[in-house]
């Protein structure tokens, strides 16, 4: 081995250690959906989130987290997201996931507890929860403006729906949209296991808003 090679190897090692020591570890601030959208399509086209069952995603994610050098917190966030929207093991005709979701407790009480004005509280609560939920779960595919151009969109087949121009969204009732969000259909995963009834309803409101934008 040449001395030049040894020097190069040692230099790379020291630079690496120095950078690692300077790093200020941060907790995973992004949602599992956001990390999934940002990370997975850097190497390959992201597979549909409902292609596999929950248990299969857990085994796959351990291997892929190693490839992507995710932290344990990041791996847990992505795994939770994928398992929650995975293909259900039970037969679709007996799937009660939507019913379960509709009776689930509100997960964001801290966002709505401080507003004393009941009239503005309702409007504020729904828009705030909707925006927060849409940002964390939907933007990665449908984009910030709902145009189907989120950071993961290019890697998905079929491409995410453009919510601003979707005639289907305009034609569906609130109840139908709620069921669609809860159960999913085709490449669109169901969010019944990850979102509460309040969050699902709030996202319906966001969809209505985006669909109405000229």
């Amino acid at each position: 081995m040449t001395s030049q090679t040894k020097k190069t190897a040692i230099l790379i090692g020291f630079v690496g250690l120095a950078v690692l020591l300077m790093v200020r570890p941060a907790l995973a601030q992004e949602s599992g959906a956001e990390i999934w959208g940002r990370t997975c399509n850097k190497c390959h086209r992201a597979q549909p989130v409902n292609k596999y069952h929950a248990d299969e995603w857990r085994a796959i994610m351990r291997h892929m987290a190693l490839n992507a050098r995710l932290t344990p917190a990041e791996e847990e966030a992505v795994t939770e997201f994928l398992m929650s929207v995975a293909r259900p093991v039970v037969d679709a005709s007996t799937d009660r996931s939507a019913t379960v979701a509709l009776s689930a407790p509100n997960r964001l009480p801290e966002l709505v507890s401080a507003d004393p004005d009941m009239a503005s509280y309702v409007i504020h609560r729904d828009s705030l929860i909707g925006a927060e939920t849409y940002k964390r779960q939907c933007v990665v595919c449908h984009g910030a403006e709902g145009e189907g151009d989120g950071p993961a969109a290019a890697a998905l087949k079929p491409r995410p729906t453009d919510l601003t121009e979707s005639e289907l969204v305009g034609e569906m009732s609130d109840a139908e949209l709620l069921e669609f969000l809860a159960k999913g259909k085709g490449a669109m995963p169901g969010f019944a296991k990850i979102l509460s009834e309040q969050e699902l309803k709030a996202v319906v409101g966001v969809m209505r808003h985006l669909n109405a934008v000229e």
Partner: protein
Amino acid sequence: MSRTLFVRCVLIVAGGMALVMAPSNVHAQMLKFSGYADLEWTLQETNDPEDEWHNLFDNHHFNLIGLAWVTDDLSGAIEVEYEHAGEEIKLEYGYISYVGIPYLRLVGGKFIIPFNRWNKDIHPTFISKMPGRPPVYGNVFPSTYSDVGIWASGGAPVGQNGNRVTYDLYVVNGLKGDPDESSFRGLRDNDREKPDRDDNKAVGGRLGFELANASFGVSGYTGDYAKTEDTGVGLGISFVGVDADYHWQGLELRGEFVSASQDLTSGENNDRSGYYLQAAYLTEVDFEPVVRFTAVDFEGQEDDAQELGIGFNYYLSASGTVRVAYLFGLEDSEFETDNDKLMTQFVVVF
């Protein structure tokens, strides 16, 4: 391939399938059986005036992957590589891992060497944007290179914008072979039937930086591959690499550089280097044009190689892809080998 190794591979695959099909206790451990396969048809230019073009079907890969989630901290993975319709069968990797320490993942077993991005992450045909490996990863770095040893890796977020730093450090048995062997790829075969003839381990690593739409990294590998018969002095081989990629919506730009140095018994070095640059754009109708340029510089020799590839991919689904590319061998005037080729590939990941 030896009969013993073949039997081992068959037993491993059969064992994996039995575990998958077994009912309850395996389900608790979360075992996923997966893989990918491809069919290639290549039209290759030759120097034979009587037969200027050869064409060949090849079932280049039918690789079976088993992924096991054992506990919160323990997992395992294996990929049985079944190449060229069964002419080559071996383990691409087979490892166990421990992830109980924050920012550290420990792997023991046979793993793919994390050198740049091509060798470990993007060489599978369901990921690679163009059929055939770029020549730099055959002539300069012996891809796909996997080895037995210990690998530590991890990553950590930096700031709040999705920026990350990643690292890989490993110790492996290392490449080995006859001194002055001209083919680097031939140095990879280091199973127990060819014991570690230099008695030294090889070390290496990669330091990576990831931004929201881009990433880059530097890699190194160094170790002895043989020792001189008369003095017993170790003969080293080392690689230094740089990789970078950029993503914006459907656009992907990627480039990698590798420099290699091999000690020879004559006291001289066999140095060579090379790079590839690739651009691909995935349109909304799942059609993806791709262009790739590769250059390899064999220092002090006249047979440098360059290749320009132009092609496209069409994604039938998220799991199935058709790839077509024409690869121009750009020969030097003194190196008159005609080696253009048309490659088509149908790939399925399951």
